[in-house]
């Protein structure tokens, strides 16, 4: 039983990071209908920015954390201005292809600067795990979980109460009607990219803090697909629940099935679940059902 709970907890920790990436992905999709295949690489970029700040520039972790957040948002903005803005009005499929190109470019840049070996952040928490009843959690995992939950709450409040948050939802609901209200949709697109890069970057820093970083971090982006498709492409709560579910499933299948078959189930399980879900609910668990107009 303890083993089970332990797996659940580590699954939730991992899943909350998937949820962060998924959140950014859904944000961009909702505002601009673009599937951003570079979401995982934004996470990687965030992780390396924090690495450069802490290890190479010797900035204390907390300051580095906040500077990295700003830089990630800036990166999102630059990407939007340089790459996405000129493509507004082009077919969605070309824009999606561009995001794939972007993911390759980001990865190449990181490899050029930092190489391919795994790097670690300076330890900010003692490695002594915290005992919660019968299970134990590392401090960095706990920090990760708390940070992710705090972010979800901030997001909820942002979308519910801030005028920009409400305007973003209006744009997602009906772009032209939002324009008729005098909302500058280009500004909203830019904000969506900034926020998406920001949350992905935070995800990257949290992972780096737990496991260290290397260029394969971009692979985290792949997990976003089962997560968001499970939750419904256009639902923010869906992204969070989807991300956590995938994390837990991965952890459980890794804990119980991998020893039986000799490993690998962990990587496949989320996608297997995804297939089943799509067969039953084509719009995901929380997605809006769309009726194609003829």
């Amino acid at each position, binding site marked *: 039983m303890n083993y089970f709970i332990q797996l659940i907890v580590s699954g939730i920790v991992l899943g909350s990071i998937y949820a962060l990436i998924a959140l950014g992905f859904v944000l961009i999709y909702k505002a601009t209908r673009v599937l951003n295949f570079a979401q995982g690489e934004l996470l990687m970029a965030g992780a390396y920015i924090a690495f450069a700040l802490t290890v190479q520039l010797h900035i204390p972790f907390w300051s580095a954390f906040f500077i990295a957040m700003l830089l990630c948002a800036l990166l999102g903005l630059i990407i939007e201005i340089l790459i996405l803005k000129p493509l507004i*009005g082009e077919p969605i499929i070309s824009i999606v292809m561009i995001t794939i190109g972007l993911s390759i470019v980001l990865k190449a840049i990181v490899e050029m600067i930092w190489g391919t070996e795994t790097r670690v952040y300076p330890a900010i928490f003692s490695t002594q795990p915290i005992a919660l009843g019968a299970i134990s959690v590392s401090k960095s995992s706990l920090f990760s979980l708390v940070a992710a939950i705090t972010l979800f709450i901030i997001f909820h409040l942002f979308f519910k109460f801030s*005028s920009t948050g*409400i*305007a973003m*939802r*209006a744009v*997602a*609901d*009906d*772009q*032209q*009607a*939002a*324009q*008729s*209200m*005098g*909302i*500058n949709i280009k500004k909203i697109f830019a904000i969506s990219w900034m926020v998406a890069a920001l949350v992905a970057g935070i995800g990257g820093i949290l992972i780096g803090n737990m496991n260290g970083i290397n260029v394969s971090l971009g692979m985290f982006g792949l997990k976003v697909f089962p997560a968001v498709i499970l939750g419904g492409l256009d639902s923010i709560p869906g992204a969070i629940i989807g991300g956590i579910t995938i994390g837990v499933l991965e952890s459980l299948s890794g804990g119980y099935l991998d020893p039986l078959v000799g490993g690998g189930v962990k990587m496949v399980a989320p996608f297997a679940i995804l297939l089943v879900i799509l067969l039953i609910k084509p719009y995901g668990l929380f997605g809006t059902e769309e009726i194609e107009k003829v």
Partner: protein
Amino acid sequence: MLKIKNIEVVYDDVILVLRGMSIEAKKGSITVLLGSNGAGKSTTLKAISGLLKSEEGKITDGDILFENRSLKNRNPEEIVSAGIFQVMEGRRIFGTLTTEENLKVAGYCRKYGKKILKNKIEKIYEYFPHLKERREIRAGYLSGGEQQMLAIGRALISEPKMILLDEPSLGLAPLLVKELFEIIERINRIDKITILLVEQNADIALSIGNYGYIMENGKVVLEGSCAKLRENEDVKEFYLGISAEGKKSFKNVKHYRRRKRWL
């Protein structure tokens, strides 16, 4: 206040929809724009409000002047800032937002402080007490009539000088239509907002309007004071459904001939 001078509008670089369209809306008046389906009424409004751009449409000739400044091919947010607010055809309520959030969004571009925005929303609720009861409900669940009131409420929040209304009576029961047009009149008289009204319901539109235009195929074919238009034989026949002869069998023939003359 608003002058459209001989504009030509093209969609997708090839589809010519407005050709030499000219109208004028005087300050403080209600100007009515009538015409059959596809005549280009909505296109005219979108040309003014800048929404053409999002549909690959462009003003290729002529000019639009609002208080003597050109609005030609400007962005929608600039035009809202200039004081023109369009209530689009089909209301276009944000169904996933609550009633109150719909009103808040409409104030976004004005950058009101929290308190001022709240007061403005309260004022809208005085106008439409029904909406107040439904403030926390997802606007998608409102009835058609409530949605139309919300659409007009959104227009009022930004305190425009001029409102463009595209077929506000669409899909409403006759009693509601009457109430709606009383509200439109009130907005015009009391709030002193200039109105440009596009309608299929010519009868009621001409009864509250000051001046009217009738368009066919992308340009104005007839204009005059609303009182005069109501007396015009063609308008009576095609838009008010009153025929002078009343003989059904000849009606179609005549319809064809008259239509020919207008084209």
